[in-house]
Each structure stands twice: as structure tokens, then as C-alpha cells.
């Protein structure tokens, strides 16, 4: 054992000290020959003969040196070093090829690593909580009616906490929060703060401990208890500059001195998990005794008891929830809860699974195209190197050694490509991680981690073997004599070789075709989504959260808001202004709404917005019938409502809704207007019933001032803010949110996928084009003589061009045919991701095929043009 270790150690040393050891050997060999010659002279030979005999007895000095090296060093490593050295030398000579190959590979590998990082972050990695696989999400069955339909009342939540037997702990949060529900004062300008109310045991249930300070104490979780908040890490860094002493101090939130109990860790980002694309500043306790009469407000998360399966817990929840009253105080309101439990992870990322898998496949196809392309390039190169390889093989290099040389080359290339790709991936991933408004979950966790690095190495290896294989295989068939002969390739090798390269190009075109068709379908869907009639005009409109103090009086509120809107409308550049309490695509609430005098139906609910006169105009909604609200609709005058077309159709089918009476939360409201449907809960979700109530007659939750202007919102920001501050010095420094941004946030996942798949398709097209160009141009070069003869025999330039283009067309058409067949299959697989587009959309298929064909012809035209410029005299004279 000891001898073994010592030997390995010595061999390693010998490997590193190659030159001194070689010198030592040379010296020893010289001494040996001297001694041998002297002895031979003593035996009576002439000095020349003596020396010759000594050399003969010694055997070849070079061979002895090689054996010496093998015996003392690491022969395999020696060979590898040789191969590497040789590879670098050849690549340096072929710099253009090396650069193109490394760049192409870098793009392919980079795209793969970046997408893998996204897939890993969103789909594969567990959620950043303690034992996240034990967490279950409970909400109502999905419906068109917004959050109110999927949330639970405080009573239902607490009943479930009490009665279930499968949960270790059950918690909840209230999703009805806005971006500036809270106002931080006493620290310079009032700041808007976003906060989410969570149940007292929220963090314990998830298994998150505070970074600083503590979670809430019992006296902070009761009605009229001590107000206390937890800060998010980012808010703490931004607003308090990471000051640790803030814990235990009080801050002014909504004019209430509030204790900062703790700071949550950096790794806990509520928005990333529960509300992708948003960032929460603070966590406030949701106190059930306060919320008891607020209706449906809570979404539930539970942690399973050990030994209980997700299925058992789900079944229990499904039997329990229908027994819960909306309000225990008012059993007459009925019980109509259902549970729709699923693993939390599924809730967070389940709906993205298909898109992500499609993305993953697309990027995998890119890698395939890259490999095929490189195979092609290497093939062309090895064909040109036939003579070199034949020569080396004639000089005694074994076939294994030559193939190893080829594989070393492809490994070196893909290693360099992997480095380029990693840099690219780091860059893309860093950029994506900072797309705060991209509504994909868990992006805060996005990074190129060791798993992604491992993935890179794996991909690089696979790529190297894949594209190194074809030339390697081909080489094993090369005929030594043919290759060494002066003429270069025999006709048969050439043809077989062409066929192989042709097949590779056809594969490439087919893959590119699939990518293009897929991207085309997704793009068409995306355009359809952008073209959806949202029911309002997001362009040239912006919203800002405003603050006012009406002391709870509806009459006072009317006066304040009328004055505010008058002043705002007087600002130059503002065309219209109005106020709502909830913006479309932002947040929503749902109230019961039926038609008076008609038997109630289970569909009797509507999304409610509480708005001022002029709001409909400001946001660009279309009044179909009747009138807008007026300031004369006062708290004490008749209650009036404007309903959406869907609501009108649902409640009074076939009748004129104007003048009818709607029952909203048990009160009578007279319909004075009908507006076009608004996509309130999602761009791609059909509108449900909607109704608008005047701020003077209903209690709004917050206020969003919407202005319509031809100026960029940030130009106006100052004057609007000055106006608002003039009315209310406590107005927080909220920012204008262009309504475009709301739409763009809502469609951001779709845009994300379209942009990526589109980019991959573009890349695929480019690579396929490069492949075609390579093959055709190589064929032209090889046929220079033949073309020269033809032209000498009278073929016109046009004829020669046509022949080359026909060749291109044949390859392209074969590739497109194969690609279309595959596309039909793929289109069906992505059908569920499409919007307003048939999987076999003729326009998309036609356009993409046309594009591919056009680009292919373009790639073939260049060599064709070159072919037609061949001078027969020159072609025939040179070999």
C-alpha cells in the first residue's frame, strides 16, 4: 500500500518535472553508450564499430526515452496534454471556425443554463420554507368573480382551525391589500407603504423565523392590542438603511404609533410566493375579531400533521367547509363554502408548468440545432483534413488515438462554449431576477447555482459527444490510400459525405421549422391577448393613490373629492380625472347583487367598484346607455348604480335595465347606466358581472385618482402631487402608475414566454441558415472543376445558379416537410397555451414556412452567385 502511494506521488512529481528527468535520462544513456563503446574497443573493435555496436545493443534511444517516461510518469496524462496542445494549435490556425463554434455553443449552452435556472427555481426547487412539501393551500374553487369568491370569512377560517384533524397548524392571509394601504409619517415626506395582513401564526406555520427581533406577542394579536408590525428585509434596507436599532422602536403608520417587532429574513419574500410581481413592505397582524364582519377575506395555508397525506387532508377539508357558516352570528346568511385544496407548491407554480416545459423543450431544440450545426462545420473541416489524418495514420497513429484527438477537439470547443454560455446565463439570470414587475413566482430566488453549473457541464459533455461523433464516425470509414492520393476525395466518399451533411441540414431545418411554428402560434396568441377589448383605455392614463380624511362622512367625502378633482382637472395637460377605489386588473371585491323582484340565483354577485363622477371617462370606459354619476347623486338622494353589460344581461335578460332596481347587499339601488364589460380579474379571463357605485353613497376602500393625459405621467407628477399636498399635507409621496403597466404586468408571463420562445426560434432560424450556407457553399467549392467544365461546355451563368438554388430548395423543402409534420404534433401539445388561435392556424403555418423558405433560399443564393462567377479557364487550370 505504502509503495503504491509513494509510486503515485513519484509519478505525479515526475510528470511535472519532465525536463530535468529527461535530461537525467539523456546523461545516463550517454554514459551507458560510452561504457559500452569502451568495452567494445577493449574487445578489439575499431572506435566506429564499437560505437555502432553499442547503439545496436542499446536499442532506439527515442524508444527507451519514451519507455522511461511511461515508467516514471503519467502516460495517459501525457497523451492528453499532447492532444490538448495539438488541439489548441489547430484551432489557433483555424481561428474563424473556432470563434464561430464557440459563439454558437455559448449561445446554445447559455440559453439552456438560463432556462434551466428558471425552470429549477419555479418548478423543481422546493419552496423556501421548512418542509415545504407538507404545506397545503386552501381556497374556493376558481371562479370568474374575483377574490371574494375564493376567500373565506374569519369565522369559516377559525372553524376550520378548530375542527380539522389533519393539520398541525392552519394559517391565513388577507389578499385584499393595495400598494399604498399604509402611510409612513414622521420621517420626512409621508411614504406609501404596502402591507399584507397575515394571521398571527403565519410565519410559524411556514417555518420562517425573523432575521431580527421577534414575531408578534399575544397582546399584539388581539383587538385593540398594541399595534406591531414586522418589516420585510428590503423595506428595512430601503427605508431604515439596515438600522438594527429600529427593532423595538415605534414608527407612525397611518398616524398610529406602531412597534417594529422584527425584521423578516432576506430569503422570505411574500410577493414572490403569493403575489408574483409585487413586493410587500410590511406584515401586519390580521386580527380575526376585527375582521369578523368583513365578509370573505382570507386565503388559507395549512401544514399537515406528520403521517397525514395531502389526499386525506384535502378530503377532510372538502367535507368540512360546506358545514361552515358565512358568519356564525348570522346563520341566516347561510353556508356556501367549498374547499379546493392543493399542495402549496402546485398553487404557486402549477399553472406555469406547461409553459415552462415548452420553454425547456424549445431551448433543448436550440441545443440540438447547435450540435447539428457544429457537426456539420466539423465534418466540413475534417473532410478538408482527410489528408492530414491519413498522413498521421500512415505515420503510426492508431485509429483510437485519432478519434480521441477529434473528441478532444470537440471537448475543448464545448468547454470554451460552456464558459461563454455561463457568462451569458449569469447575465440573463441576473437581469431576469431584477424584473420586479414580471409576474412569475419565486424570481427572487433565481440564480445560477451549483445545480445549474452541473447542468452546464452535462450539457457541454453531451454536446461535445453529439457533435464530435459524426466526424469521428465518418473518419473510421476514411480510406487511407484514397485520401493520400493527390486528387483528394474519391467520388464515392464525396457523395456519401454530402448525403450525411444533407441529412444534418434537413434535421436542422426541421427543428427550426418546429420552433418557428411554435413561436408563431404563441406570438399570434400574444397579439390576440394584446388586442383584447379590455373595456377601458389603458393608454395615456395613469393612477395615483390619494389620501384624504372625510371623518367617515359620505357627505364630507363628496365635497372633498369634488374639490380635489376640480383642482386636478385644472392642471394643464389633464384631459379627464376621476377616482375609483379599485383599479381593474389590480384588486377587486365582490358583493351580492340581484334583481329586485326576481328569485335569487347562485350567480347573484358582482365585482363592485366605488367611483366618482368622471371616472368612467377618465379610465376610458364606454357608457352604452343611461348616464354617468353626478355630484348631485348625494348621500341622501336616491341610491344609483351603473352596471356592466354582462350584469344587465344576466339580471334583466331581454329588458332595458335603465330604471330597474338592483339589490346590492340587501339594499335597493336604481340602475342609471350601462357600461361595456371590463376585464377586471385578468386580461385573458372573460368579464363577469360588474357594478359601479358612487363614492358619495357607498364606502370606498382607498382611492385611486385616475387621470387621462397626453403628457407622460412623470411630467405631470410634480404638479399633481403639489395640488394633492395643497389639499392634504399628509398625502404620501406615491408614484404615478401608468395603467399600461397594470396591463403589462397582467400579461407579463405570456410576454416572457413569447419573447423567449421567439428569441429561440430566431436563433434556430439563424443557425439553420448558417447550416444551409455551409453545406451549399462547401458543395460549390468541391464542384468548382465540374462547374467549370459545364460552363466551358456552354452552360449559362443562370443555369449554374439555378442548379445550386435547386439543390438548396431540395434540402429546404425536405426539412420543411419533416418540420411541418412535427409541428402539427407540437401544436397540439401547446394548444392549451394558445389564446384565440387554433393549433393549426393556417396563417401562422404558412407565414413561418414562407419565412423559413425565404431565408433558406437567401442562404443558398450566396454560394449560387459565387458558382456563377466561376471562370472556367481558372477552374480547369487549377487542380
Amino acid at each position: 500500500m505504502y509503495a503504491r502511494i509513494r509510486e503515485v506521488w513519484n509519478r505525479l512529481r515526475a510528470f511535472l518535472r519532465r525536463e530535468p528527468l529527461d535530461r537525467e535520462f539523456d546523461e545516463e544513456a550517454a554514459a551507458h553508450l560510452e561504457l559500452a563503446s569502451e568495452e567494445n574497443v577493449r574487445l578489439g573493435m575499431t572506435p566506429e564499430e564499437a560505437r555502432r555496436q553499442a547503439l545496436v545493443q542499446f536499442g532506439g534511444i527515442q524508444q527507451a526515452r519514451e519507455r522511461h517516461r511511461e515508467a516514471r510518469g503519467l502516460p495517459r496524462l501525457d497523451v492528453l496534454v499532447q492532444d490538448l496542445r495539438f488541439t489548441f494549435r489547430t484551432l489557433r490556425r483555424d481561428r474563424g471556425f473556432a470563434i464561430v463554434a464557440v459563439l454558437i455553443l455559448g449561445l446554445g449552452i447559455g440559453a439552456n443554463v438560463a432556462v434551466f435556472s428558471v425552470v429549477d427555481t419555479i418548478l423543481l426547487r422546493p419552496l423556501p420554507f421548512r418542509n415545504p412539501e407538507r404545506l397545503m393551500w386552501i381556497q374556493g374553487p376558481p371562479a370568474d368573480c374575483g377574490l371574494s369568491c375564493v376567500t373565506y370569512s374569519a369565522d369559516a377560517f377559525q372553524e376550520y382551525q378548530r375542527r380539522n384533524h389533519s393539520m398541525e397548524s392552519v394559517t391565513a392571509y388577507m389578499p385584499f391589500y393595495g400598494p399604498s394601504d399604509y402611510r409612513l409619517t414622521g420621517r420626512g415626506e409621508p411614504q406609501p407603504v404596502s402591507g399584507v395582513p397575515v394571521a398571527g401564526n403565519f410565519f410559524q406555520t411556514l417555518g420562517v423565523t425573523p432575521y431580527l427581533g421577534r414575531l408578534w406577542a399575544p397582546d399584539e394579536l388581539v383587538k385593540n392590542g398594541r399595534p406591531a408590525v414586522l418589516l420585510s428585509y428590503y423595506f428595512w434596507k430601503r427605508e431604515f438603511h439596515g438600522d438594527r436599532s429600529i427593532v423595538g422602536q415605534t414608527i407612525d403608520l397611518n398616524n398610529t404609533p406602531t412597534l417594529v417587532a422584527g425584521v423578516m429574513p432576506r430569503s422570505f419574500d411574500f410577493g414572490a410566493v403569493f403575489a408574483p410581481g409585487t413586493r410587500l413592505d410590511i406584515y401586519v397582524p390580521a386580527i380575526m375579531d376585527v375582521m369578523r364582519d368583513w365578509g370573505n377575506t382570507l386565503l388559507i395555508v395549512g401544514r399537515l400533521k406528520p403521517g397525514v397525506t395531502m389526499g386525506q387532508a384535502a378530503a377532510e377539508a372538502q367535507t368540512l367547509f360546506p358545514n361552515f357558516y358565512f358568519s356564525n352570528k348570522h346563520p341566516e346568511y347561510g353556508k356556501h363554502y367549498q374547499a379546493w385544496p392543493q399542495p402549496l407548491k402546485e398553487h404557486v407554480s402549477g399553472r406555469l408548468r406547461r409553459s415552462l416545459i415548452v420553454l425547456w423543450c424549445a431551448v433543448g431544440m436550440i441545443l440540438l440545432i447547435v450540435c447539428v450545426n457544429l457537426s456539420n462545420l466539423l465534418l466540413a473541416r475534417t473532410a478538408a483534413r482527410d489528408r492530414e489524418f491519413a498522413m498521421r495514420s500512415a505515420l503510426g497513429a492508431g485509429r483510437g488515438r485519432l478519434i480521441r484527438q477529434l473528441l478532444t477537439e470537440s471537448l475543448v470547443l464545448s468547454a470554451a462554449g460552456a464558459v461563454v454560455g455561463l457568462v451569458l446565463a449569469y447575465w440573463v439570470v441576473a437581469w431576469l431576477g431584477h424584473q420586479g414587475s414580471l409576474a412569475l413566482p419565486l424570481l427572487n430566488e433565481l440564480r445560477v447555482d451549483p445545480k445549474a453549473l452541473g447542468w452546464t457541464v452535462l450539457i457541454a459533455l453531451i454536446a461535445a459527444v453529439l457533435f464530435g461523433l459524426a466526424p469521428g464516425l465518418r473518419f473510421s470509414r476514411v480510406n487511407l490510400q484514397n485520401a493520400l492520393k493527390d486528387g483528394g476525395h474519391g467520388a464515392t466518399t464525396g457523395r456519401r459525405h454530402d448525403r450525411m451533411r444533407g441529412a444534418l441540414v434537413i434535421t436542422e431545418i426541421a427543428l427550426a421549422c418546429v420552433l418557428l411554428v411554435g413561436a408563431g402560434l404563441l406570438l399570434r396568441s400574444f397579439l390576440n391577448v394584446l388586442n383584447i377589448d379590455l373595456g377601458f383605455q389603458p393608454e395615456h392614463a395613469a393612477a395615483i393613490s390619494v389620501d384624504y380624511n372625510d371623518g367617515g362622512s359620505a357627505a364630507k367625502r363628496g365635497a372633498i373629492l369634488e374639490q380635489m378633482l376640480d383642482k386636478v382637472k385644472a392642471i394643464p395637460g389633464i384631459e379627464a380625472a376621476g377616482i375609483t377605489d379599485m383599479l381593474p386588473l389590480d384588486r377587486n371585491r365582490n358583493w351580492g347583487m340581484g334583481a329586485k323582484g326576481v328569485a335569487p340565483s347562485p350567480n347573484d354577485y358582482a365585482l363592485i367598484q366605488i367611483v366618482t363622477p368622471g371616472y368612467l371617462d377618465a379610465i376610458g370606459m364606454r357608457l352604452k346607455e343611461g348616464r354617468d354619476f353626478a355630484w348631485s347623486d348625494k348621500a341622501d338622494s336616491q341610491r344609483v348604480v351603473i352596471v356592466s353589460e354582462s350584469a344587465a344581461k344576466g339580471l334583466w335578460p331581454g329588458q332595458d335595465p335603465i330604471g330597474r332596481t338592483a339589490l346590492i347587499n340587501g339594499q335597493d339601488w336604481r340602475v342609471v347606466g350601462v357600461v361595456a364589460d371590463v376585464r377586471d380579474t385578468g386580461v385573458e379571463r372573460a368579464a363577469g358581472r360588474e357594478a359601479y357605485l358612487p363614492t358619495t353613497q357607498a364606502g370606498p376602500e382607498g382611492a385611486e385618482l385616475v387621470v387621462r393625459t397626453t403628457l407622460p405621467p412623470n411630467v405631470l407628477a410634480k404638479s399633481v402631487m403639489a395640488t394633492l399636498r395643497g389639499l392634504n399635507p399628509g398625502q404620501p409621496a406615491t408614484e404615478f402608475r401608468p395603467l399600461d403597466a397594470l396591463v403589462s404586468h397582467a400579461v407579463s408571463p405570456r410576454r416572457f414566454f413569447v419573447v423567449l420562445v421567439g428569441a429561440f426560434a430566431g436563433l434556430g432560424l439563424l443557425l439553420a441558415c448558417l447550416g444551409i450556407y455551409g453545406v451549399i457553399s462547401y458543395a460549390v467549392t468541391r464542384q468548382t472543376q465540374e462547374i467549370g467544365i459545364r460552363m466551358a461546355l456552354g452552360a449559362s451563368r443562370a443555369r449554374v445558379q439555378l442548379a445550386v438554388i435547386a439543390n438548396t430548395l431540395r434540402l429546404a423543402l425536405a426539412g420543411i416537410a419533416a418540420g411541418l409534420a412535427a409541428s402539427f404534433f407540437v401544436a397540439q401539445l401547446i394548444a392549451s397555451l394558445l389564446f384565440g388561435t387554433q393549433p393549426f392556424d393556417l396563417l401562422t403555418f404558412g407565414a413561418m414556412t414562407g419565412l423559413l423558405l425565404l431565408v433558406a433560399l437567401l442562404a443558398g443564393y450566396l454560394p449560387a452567385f459565387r458558382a456563377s462567377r466561376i471562370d472556367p479557364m481558372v477552374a480547369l487550370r487549377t487542380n
Partner: protein
Amino acid sequence: MADSKLDLLQGTLDLMVLQTLAAMGPLHGYGIARRIEQVSGDAVLLNQGTIYASLVRLVQRGWIAAEWGTSENNRRARFYSITRNGRKQLAEDTRYWHRLSEVMARMLALSSDGGE
């Protein structure tokens, strides 16, 4: 030439070198090569140069030691001598070699009997 020369089996050269050094004391490479040729009666095929691969291997394993010195006719040469570990190894290899050759002899005798 009546018989063609014997190709050396893997490892046998190492054993020969060890035995030579054990019997003769420190020697330089040429001396070892000559000694082996003489003892074998020129029956083994030995490119003298190959002895150096064997020597460097044995040095690395710590069975022999090398040292530059001066030869009998005042030439600078590298002298090799067997170490304690080398002697142990030699004893072991010798035992092994005897057993192997005994077994081989019995095997070959058996096959020539059975061949009739």
C-alpha cells in the same frame, strides 16, 4: 541462431535487476544490463535501453536507490543499489516466482501426458 531469443515477461526484468543488485552490490545501468546478458548466456532479448525504464520504476517504488558516482574507468555514471524494502520485495518475488514456475512445470508435464 538456433533458438530465437526469449521475450521478457512483464515484471521479470524488474526481478532480474533486483536480484543482480542484491548479488553484485551497487552497479550502473550498463553494468546491470551486461550482467543480465552474461548470466542468461545471451538468451534473453534485451534492448539495453529498456533497463532504464525498469530502473526508474524501481527507484520510484523505493526498492532501489540511485546515486551519481564515478565508474571504474573514471566516467560519471549513476549507481544503483538495492534498499531494505527492495530486499523484502525480492524475497517475496522470488518465492512467488518459484511457486509459479513449479506450477507451470507441473501443468506443462500434465498436458504433454494427456496429449497422447
